[in-house]
C-alpha cells in the first residue's frame, strides 16, 4: 500500500542516526566491532565462573538464509569440548530459515559456540518412512522452543515439532498440517516457567486462524481453532498470556493485518463451539496499518504491539482494566520506521544510563546471585521491588526493543520511563537490516540481544556490558544529545542557557504510580512473596553497604537531596507539589526492598546516603565574574548583580531543566548603565557647542555611571580635538598674517590678535617651565581653555567623585560654571544653548564680528584683571596660549553657528582666515565637500604640507605664508611647539598616572612614543618642524608613518606628511573605535560615529557609520528604548539620514484586512490592471470579495490613507480625527456604529 511512504520512512529512519547521533562516528575510532566470531571464540579461555566479559559478543555466520531464532533452555550434554554447566541450565539458540534449522550450543556465559547441530539433517523422524522428503523444502518461517521441544512453523502451513535429547540428538515427533497458509507465530502454553514440559502450543497463520495443538495427541487436527473474524484476517503474531493462569483463564492475544489486537479466552469461549471456532472476547484497533508483532509484558497484563504505522502501543489487556474501552492505548511510542518485531526484555533494567558506568561492577557482583536456579517467578519477585520511581510499577522496569521493516539496519531499545528517546540503538555491523531478535535468558540476568540479520549473521549484544559504550554498534542516543542550549539576550553580554539533567526525565509522575499500584494489587502474581521478602531484604542491606562505600569515595560530595528538597519547598520552584525525582533517586530506590507499602521505613532511611545527585554540580561563574571585574575595571553597577548571582548560584540547587540567566560582567553589559548612557550621551552637537564640549559632557556622563575608562577616552578625544583646533587656529593666525601682509588689510582685530600672539607667546616662553601644580582656579572664559580647566580638575580629581565638566562658551557660562553640579548639567547646556542663540541672533550679519569683539573685550577685561593668573594658568595648564585659545574658540563659535559661517563667506575680509584656509586645504586635498567644520580634520603638519603644496603650485598667498614662516621662525615655531608638544607632554604623563589604575588597556599613546618630542627643547623642535616643512621629500614621508598616515596615503590623494602624533584626533578615534568595537561597546561606538562622522569622514566612513548606527538602533529597539531610538535617528548625520531611515522605519508595514472577508488586502489583480506598483494600493477596496471597505463610521466618508484610518476591534473603522472627536471630545465610550462595543 505504501511503498512510497515506506521508503520515506526508512530513509527517515536511516537519517535518524544523523540526529540521534553517532552511530557511525565512532567507527573511525573503533574498528574492533566488526571482527569475526572466530576470534572471539578461539581466544576465549575457560574462565567462566567470573563471567569474563571481555568477549561478550558472538558472531556466527549461517550459510543459508535465516529468518527466525529462538532460545532453547535445555541442557545439552556430551557436547564436543563441552563441559557440564554449573547451573544445570544452559542456553542455546535455535536458528531457523530456508531449509535451515540449527541448534547453536553455547557455553555457560553465552560467549562461545560449542557446537552447532543441524536439526534437519540428523533428525530421526517417526514419519521418516512415510515422508522421506521431510528434509527438503523446509522453509521455516518461525521457531519456538520450550524445554526440549522445538516447534517450527513453515511457510507452507506445516508445523514440525522436534524433541531434543540431552546428547543433542533431535527427532521429529509431530507434523501438523491444518493451516492453509504460512505459519507466522508459535507459542507454547506454559505457566511461565521454562522448566516444566508443556504439551500445548498455539500457532497463528496467515490464513487468519489460530490453532491450539496438543503434542500428546496423535490426532493431527487442532484442539481448537480460533478465528478473529469471519473473513480471514491474517495473524501476524499470537501469544499465550502466562499471567492469565493466575485468574484460571487461558488468554491468547493476537495481532492482525487489520491492525487490531484480539483477545481470546479459551476457558470461557465465545463463538461457534460446534466447529471448534472461537471468536475474540475483545478486540481493539490499535494500529492504522498492519500490526506486525506483539509481545506480552513479563510481569503484567500488558501487551506491546508494533505496527507498520511506525508505532508501538502498550495496552493493558486485563479484564480489570477500567479503561479498556478507550480508543487510544495507554502508552504509544513513535518510532522512526515501520515496526517489524517487538520484544520485552526478559529482565528488568535496573539502571539507567546515568549510573550505568558508576555502578557496573557492583551490579555484576550483585546479580550473580540471581542465576537461573531461581525460578522465573522468584526472579520476578526479586526484580519487582517497588522503587521510588516505579513503585509497584514493573511496567517501567522492562525495556523493550523493536526492529524495523525494509532496509533499516537498527534495533531500538526503549523504556517507558522515557518514551521519546530510545535508550539504545543497535546497528548491525554490516549495515544489513535485522531479520529477527530475541532477549535471551542468561545466567547474569543482563540485558542481552540475540539477533539474526538479513545477511544471515547471528550476533549477540550485551547491553548491560560496561564496555558497550565503546561499541560502535550500540549507541545511546541520549548521550549524543546536548543537554544545554544557549541563547543570547538583547543585551551586550546577556544570555541565558537552559540546562538539564538528561536522565531526570526518566520517570513518571506520582499519579501514575498510584494507579499502577492499584493494578498490581489486582494482578497479584501467583507467588508467595513473603518467602522471598526476607531474602530480598538481606540483599538490600548488603547492597546498601556497598552503595554507601561507593558514595563515600565519590570525589565531589554534594549538598545532597535534603537541601534540594528544602529549596523546593521554599517555593523557588513553580510547581512544588509535583515532585520529580531524578534517576539518581531511582538509583537509590531501585533497591528498596518490597512492593508493599510497609517498606516505607527502609525507604526513608535511604535518603541519607543519597548525595549522588548530580555530583558535578558546581559552578565556576563566580571566579569568572571576579576576574573580569578586575580586568575590565567594571564598577559597582556591574558587580552588584553578578555577585548576587554568584551567591544564588552556589547555594541553591534546582531540579532540571533550569534556565540560567547569565549577565556577563563586561563593561558594555549593564542595563542600567546602558540606558543611562543611551539617555544622556549627546549624540549631536547642540547649537553653540562644539565637539570638544560635547566630548567633555559625554565624559562627565560616562563618569556619572562609573565608566571611567570611557570618561577618559572622551576627555582624551576632547583634548586632542582642542589640540587640533589650536593648531588650526595657529595656522589660521599665520594666514591672517599673510592676508594682512598680502592684501594690506590691516584689520584691527587681527592686528590685535597678532599683538596678543606675540605677547602671550613671549609670556608663554617665560612661563614655559612654570610648574603645573600651581594651577589654582580656572580663569579663562573661552571654550577651549575653559574646558581645559574643567578637565584638569576632573583629571586631578579622578577617582573621587566625578566632577561636572565646565564647558564654557562665554563669560556668562563661565560665571555659572563655578556653581556647576552634575545635576544641573543638562540645565546648563540648555542655558548655554540659549546664550549662544541670543548671541548669534543679535545681528546675523555681524554676528561673527560681534562675537569676536565681545570676546575680545571680555578677554581684555579679563586679561587686565587677572593677567598674571591668566597667563600662568594658560601655560601651566598646558593647554594653549591665550590668543590661540581665543581664536580657537572664536572659530568654534563660527563653525557651530551656521549663520556665522554664512556671514564668513559673505564677508571674507572680516574673518576668516579659517574658512579661507580651509578652502586652500580643500583644493589641495581635493576634498569633495566643503563643510565649514572640516578644518579640524587637518592637523598642523598636514597644513604645513598643504601650504607647501600650494607653494609649489605657485599660489601667491601661500608663498607668502612660507615667507612669513621663514621670516619669523622663532615666534611661530615656538608657539607651535608650546602648543602642540608641551601640552601633550604634561597631559600624557598625567594621563598615564591617572588612568592607568583604572586599567586603561592600550599603551599606544604612551609616554615613550611622545617622549622624544616632549623632551626636545624648543629649538630642536623648531628645527625639526622646520626641516619637515621645508625639506619635503618622499623619503622624509616614509620615515614616520602611523597607521593613519598609511591609510591616508593609500586613500587620500596627496600623500600626507605626518609626524607621528599619537594624540591626534584621527589616530585616537581610530583606536578608540577599534577597541570599543572589539569590546562590543555599541553605545560608545555609535555615539562616536554620530558625533564624529561629519568631521572625520576618513576614519568613520559612511559604511562604518551606517553599520554602527543601525546596530545601535537595533539594540535600542530590542531593549524597547524607542525614544532613544528616535533620538538617534534624528541626530544621524545628514548624509546618512535617508539610508538609515530606509533601513529602520520601513520595517513596520501596516497591513489591512478586508472588513468583509477578512483577507489580507493585497489586490494584486487590480494592481496589475491599473499598473499601479505602489505597495499600499487599494486599502479601501478588496479584490477577493469585490467590495469597497466600509466608510468611516462617523462621517460616512471613505477611509483612505494609511495614517488617518483607525480600525476598532469591532471591525468598524473611521478617520482618526473623527474617532477622536467622538471618543475624546464627546467622551463616548461606545463605538459610534451602534454595535455596543465599548472602548476603555
Amino acid at each position, binding site marked *: 500500500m505504501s511503498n512510497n511512504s515506506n521508503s520515506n520512512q526508512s530513509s527517515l529512519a536511516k*537519517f535518524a542516526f544523523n540526529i540521534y547521533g553517532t552511530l557511525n562516528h565512532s567507527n573511525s575510532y573503533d574498528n574492533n566491532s566488526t571482527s569475526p566470531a572466530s576470534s572471539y571464540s578461539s581466544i576465549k579461555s575457560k574462565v567462566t565462573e567470573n563471567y569474563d566479559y571481555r568477549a561478550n559478543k558472538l558472531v556466527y555466520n549461517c550459510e543459508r538464509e535465516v529468518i527466525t531464532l529462538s532460545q532453547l533452555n535445555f541442557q545439552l550434554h556430551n557436547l564436543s569440548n563441552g563441559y557440564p554447566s554449573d547451573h544445570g541450565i544452559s542456553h542455546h539458540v535455535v536458528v531457523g530459515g530456508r531449509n535451515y534449522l540449527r541448534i547453536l550450543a553455547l557455553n555457560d556465559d553465552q560467549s562461545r559456540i560449542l557446537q552447532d547441530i543441524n536439526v534437519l539433517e540428523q533428525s530421526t523422524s517417526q514419519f521418516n518412512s512415510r515422508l522421506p522428503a521431510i528434509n527438503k523444502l523446509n522453509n521455516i518461517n518461525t521457531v519456538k522452543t520450550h524445554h526440549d521441544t522445538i516447534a517450527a512453523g513453515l511457510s507452507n502451513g506445516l508445523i514440525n515439532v522436534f524433541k531434543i535429547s540431552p546428547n543433542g540428538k533431535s527427532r521429529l515427533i509431530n507434523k501438523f498440517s491444518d493451516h492453509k497458509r504460512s505459519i507466522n507465530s508459535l507459542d507454547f502454553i506454559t505457566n511461565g516457567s521454562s522448566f516444566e514440559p508443556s504439551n500445548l502450543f498455539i500457532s497463528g497463520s496467515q490464513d487468519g486462524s489460530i490453532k491450539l495443538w496438543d503434542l500428546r495427541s496423535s490426532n493431527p487436527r487442532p484442539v481448537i481453532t480460533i478465528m478473529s473474524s469471519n473473513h480471514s484476517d491474517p495473524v501476524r503474531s499470537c501469544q499465550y498470556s502466562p499471567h492469565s493462569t493466575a485468574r484460571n483463564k487461558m488468554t491468547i492475544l493476537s495481532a492482525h493485518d487489520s491492525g487490531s489486537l484480539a483477545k481470546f479466552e479459551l476457558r470461557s469461549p465465545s463463538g461457534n463451539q460446534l466447529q471448534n471456532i472461537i471468536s475474540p472476547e475483545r478486540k481493539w484497533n490499535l494500529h492504522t496499518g498492519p500490526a506486525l508483532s506483539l509481545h506480552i509484558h513479563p510481569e503484567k497484563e500488558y501487551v506491546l504491539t508494533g505496527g507498520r504505522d511506525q508505532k508501538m502501543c502498550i495496552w493493558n489487556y486485563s479484564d480489570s482494566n477500567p479503561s479498556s474501552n478507550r480508543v487510544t492505548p495507554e502508552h504509544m511510542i513513535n518510532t522512526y520506521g515501520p515496526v517489524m518485531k517487538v520484544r520485552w526484555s526478559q529482565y528488568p533494567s535496573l539502571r539507567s544510563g546515568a549510573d550505568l558506568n558508576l555502578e557496573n561492577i557492583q551490579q555484576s557482583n550483585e546479580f550473580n546471585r540471581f542465576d537461573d536456579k531461581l525460578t522465573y517467578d522468584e526472579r520476578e519477585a526479586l526484580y519487582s521491588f517497588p522503587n521510588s520511581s516505579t513503585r509497584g510499577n514493573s511496567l517501567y522496569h522492562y525495556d523493550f526493543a523493536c526492529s524495523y521493516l525494509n532496509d533499516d539496519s537498527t534495533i531500538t531499545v526503549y523504556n517507558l520511563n522515557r518514551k521519546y528517546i530510545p535508550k539504545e540503538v543497535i546497528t548491525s555491523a554490516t549495515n544489513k537490516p535485522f531479520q529477527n531478535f530475541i532477549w535471551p535468558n542468561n545466567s547474569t540476568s543482563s540485558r542481552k540481544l540475540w539477533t539474526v540479520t538479513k545477511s544471515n549473521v547471528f550476533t549477540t549484544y550485551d547491553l548491560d556490558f560496561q564496555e558497550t559504550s565503546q561499541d560502535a554498534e550500540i549507541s545511546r542516543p541520549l548521550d549524543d*544529545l546536548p543537554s*544545554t542550549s544557549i541563547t543570547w539576550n538583547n543585551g*551586550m553580554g546577556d544570555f541565558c542557557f537552559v540546562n538539564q539533567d538528561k536522565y531526570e526525565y526518566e520517570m513518571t509522575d506520582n499519579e501514575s504510580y498510584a494507579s499502577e499500584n492499584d493494578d498490581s494489587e489486582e494482578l497479584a502474581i501467583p507467588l508467595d512473596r513473603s518467602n522471598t521478602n526476607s531474602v530480598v531484604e538481606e540483599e538490600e542491606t548488603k547492597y546498601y553497604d556497598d552503595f554507601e562505600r561507593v558514595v563515600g569515595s565519590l570525589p565531589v560530595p554534594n549538598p545532597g537531596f535534603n537541601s534540594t528538597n528544602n529549596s523546593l519547598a521554599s517555593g523557588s520552584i513553580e510547581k512544588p507539589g509535583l515532585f520529580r525525582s531524578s534517576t539518581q533517586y531511582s538509583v537509590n530506590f531501585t533497591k528498596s526492598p518490597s512492593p508493599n507499602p510497609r517498606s516505607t521505613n527502609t525507604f526513608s532511611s535511604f535518603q541519607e546516603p543519597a548525595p549522588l545527585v548530580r555530583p558535578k554540580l558546581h559552578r565556576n561563574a563566580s571566579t569568572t565574574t571576579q576576574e573580569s571585574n578586575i580586568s575590565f575595571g567594571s564598577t559597582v553597577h556591574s558587580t552588584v548583580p553578578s555577585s548576587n548571582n554568584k551567591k544564588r548560584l552556589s547555594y541553591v540547587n534546582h531540579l532540571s531543566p533550569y534556565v540560567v540567566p547569565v549577565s556577563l560582567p563586561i563593561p558594555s553589559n549593564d542595563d542600567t548603565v546602558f540606558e543611562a548612557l543611551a539617555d544622556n550621551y549627546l549624540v549631536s552637537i547642540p547649537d553653540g557647542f562644539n565637539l570638544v564640549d560635547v566630548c567633555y559632557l559625554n565624559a562627565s556622563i560616562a563618569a556619572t555611571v562609573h565608566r571611567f575608562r570611557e570618561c577618559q577616552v572622551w576627555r582624551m578625544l576632547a583634548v586632542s580635538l582642542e589640540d587640533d583646533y589650536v593648531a588650526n587656529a595657529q595656522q589660521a593666525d599665520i594666514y591672517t598674517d599673510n592676508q594682512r601682509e598680502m592684501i594690506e588689510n590691516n584689520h584691527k582685530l587681527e592686528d590685535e590678535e597678532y599683538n596678543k600672539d606675540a605677547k602671550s607667546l613671549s609670556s608663554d616662553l617665560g612661563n614655559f617651565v612654570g610648574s603645573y601644580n600651581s594651577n589654582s582656579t580656572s580663569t579663562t572664559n573661552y571654550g577651549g581653555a575653559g574646558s581645559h580647566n574643567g578637565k584638569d580638575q576632573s583629571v586631578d580629581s579622578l577617582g573621587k567623585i566625578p566632577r561636572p565638566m565646565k564647558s564654557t562658551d562665554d563669560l556668562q557660562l563661565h560665571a555659572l560654571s563655578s556653581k556647576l553640579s552634575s545635576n544641573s548639567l543638562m540645565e546648563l547646556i540648555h542655558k548655554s544653548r540659549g546664550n549662544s542663540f541670543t548671541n548669534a541672533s543679535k545681528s546675523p550679519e555681524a554676528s561673527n564680528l560681534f562675537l569676536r569683539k565681545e570676546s575680545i573685550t571680555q578677554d581684555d577685561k579679563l586679561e587686565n584683571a587677572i593677567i598674571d593668573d591668566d597667563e600662568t594658568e594658560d601655560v601651566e595648564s598646558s593647554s594653549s596660549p591665550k590668543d590661540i585659545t581665543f581664536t580657537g574658540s572664536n572659530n568654534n563659535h563660527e563653525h557651530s553657528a551656521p549663520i556665522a559661517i554664512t556671514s564668513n563667506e559673505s564677508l571674507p575680509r572680516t574673518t576668516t582666515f579659517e574658512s579661507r584656509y580651509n578652502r586652500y586645504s580643500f583644493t589641495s586635498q581635493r576634498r569633495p565637500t566643503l563643510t565649514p567644520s572640516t578644518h579640524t580634520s587637518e592637523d598642523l603638519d598636514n597644513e604645513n604640507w598643504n601650504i607647501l603644496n600650494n607653494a609649489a603650485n605657485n599660489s601667491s598667498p601661500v608663498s607668502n605664508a612660507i615667507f612669513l614662516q621663514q621670516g619669523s621662525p622663532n615666534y611661530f615655531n615656538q608657539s607651535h611647539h608650546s602648543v602642540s608638544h608641551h601640552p601633550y607632554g604634561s597631559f600624557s604623563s598625567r594621563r598615564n598616572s591617572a588612568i592607568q589604575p583604572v586599567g586603561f588597556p592600550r599603551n599606544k599613546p604612551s609616554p615613550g612614543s611622545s617622549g622624544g618630542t616632549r623632551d626636545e627643547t624648543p629649538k630642536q623642535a623648531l628645527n625639526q618642524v622646520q626641516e619637515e616643512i621645508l625639506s619635503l621629500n618622499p623619503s622624509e614621508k616614509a620615515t614616520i608613518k602611523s597607521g593613519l598616515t598609511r591609510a591616508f596615503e593609500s586613500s587620500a590623494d596627496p600623500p600626507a606628511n605626518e609626524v607621528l602624533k599619537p594624540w591626534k584626533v584621527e589616530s585616537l578615534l581610530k583606536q578608540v573605535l577599534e577597541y570599543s*568595537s572589539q569590546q562590543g561597546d555599541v553605545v560608545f561606538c555609535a555615539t562616536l560615529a554620530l558625533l564624529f562622522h561629519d568631521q572625520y569622514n576618513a576614519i568613520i566612513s559612511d559604511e562604518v557609520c*551606517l553599520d554602527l548606527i543601525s546596530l545601535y538602533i537595533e539594540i535600542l529597539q530590542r531593549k524597547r528604548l524607542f525614544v532613544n531610538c528616535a533620538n538617534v535617528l534624528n541626530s544621524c548625520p545628514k548624509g546618512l539620514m535617508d539610508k538609515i531611515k530606509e533601513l529602520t522605519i520601513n520595517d*513596520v508595514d501596516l497591513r489591512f484586512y478586508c472588513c468583509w472577508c477578512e483577507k*489580507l488586502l493585497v489586490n494584486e489583480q487590480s494592481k496589475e490592471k491599473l499598473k499601479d506598483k505602489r505597495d499600499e494600493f487599494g486599502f479601501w477596496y478588496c479584490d477577493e470579495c469585490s467590495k469597497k471597505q466600509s466608510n468611516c463610521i462617523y462621517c460616512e466618508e471613505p477611509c483612505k490613507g494609511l495614517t488617518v484610518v483607525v480600525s476598532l*476591534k469591532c471591525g468598524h473603522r473611521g478617520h482618526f480625527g473623527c474617532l477622536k472627536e467622538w471618543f475624546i471630545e464627546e467622551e463616548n465610550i461606545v463605538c459610534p456604529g451602534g454595535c455596543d462595543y465599548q472602548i476603555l
Partner: protein
Amino acid sequence: MVTIGNAHDDIIHDAVLDYYGKRLATSSSDKTIKIFEIEGTENYKLSTTLTGHEGPVWQVAWAHPKFGSILASCSFDGKALIWKEQPETQQWSIIAEHSVHQASVNSVSWAPHELGAILLCTSSDGKVSVVDFNDDGTTSHVIFDAHVIGVNSASWAPITTTSTSSKDAASLKQQRRFVTCGSDNLAKIWKYDPTHNTYVEEARLEGHTDWVRDVAWSPSILVRSYIATASQDGTVLIWTQDKSGQWKKQLLTDEKFPDVCWRCSWSLSGNILAVSGGDNKVSLWKENLQGKWESAGEVDQ
C-alpha cells in the same frame, strides 16, 4: 537560575529568546514547543504549549517582530512548522507547514529581517531549503543538495547596511548568503544565483575531521566577519576572510575540547562566542587585541 521543571516530558533541545528578550521558546524531544513569558529575570511563566510535530523538535527560531509574533520550528518528522500568535486572542496556530524534506529537519533560521520573511531549513537528507513567505501569503521555496550525509546547521550572513540601499526584490535576493555545515566534515558558504534561481557554493570551509555540528556567522558588522564552526571532533574553528577573499581558519583553542562541541553562537555585538559542549559546559570566548582567542569565562552547570 530558575527551574522550569515539569515543563517538558523529555530533554529540551533548543531554547531561544525572542527579539525583546521577553519570551523564551523551548523545544523538546516530547514533540512540543513551550513558550515562557519572562518577568524580571527570575520568573519564567509557561504561557503556551504548541503541539503539532510528530517527532522531537530540534530547533525553534523567532522571526523579527515586524512580521508579528512568529515562531518557526523543525523536527525529526521532516517538517518545519510556522506558528503565529494572534495578537488579539494570544492563540497560537500553525500558519504554514514546510515539508519538502525527506528526513529530519535539523535547523531553522530566519534571514536578516531586511531581506524579508525567509526561512532557511537544513535537513538530514543532505538538502537545504530556503522558503520565501511572500507578502501575498504565498510561499515559494528553493531546495538544493548541500552536504552529502546530512546538513546539521546553517547561519545567515549579516546584511551590510550599505548594500541594502536598494530595496527592490532582485537586489535584495542577491544579498542572500549563508553558511551551512554538515556531516561531511565541511562547512560551505552559499550565495544566491539569480540566473538559475538557486544557491551556489561560494566557498568551502575544510578543516574539521568529524561532523560539523553547528555553524554561526557573527551577526554584527561591528567587528570583522567571523564564522565559527563547532564539530564532533572536539574543536571549534574561527574563519575569517583575508584581503583576497579567502577564508582562513583559526583554532579557537590549541587544545581540543574535552568532548564533542555541540553548539556555538555569537553575542549580539558579535564579539563573544559561546560554545557548548558534550561536557555540559558553556564556555565563552573573546578575541584579544593580538587576534588570539581567549576564554572569557565558563559556565559549568
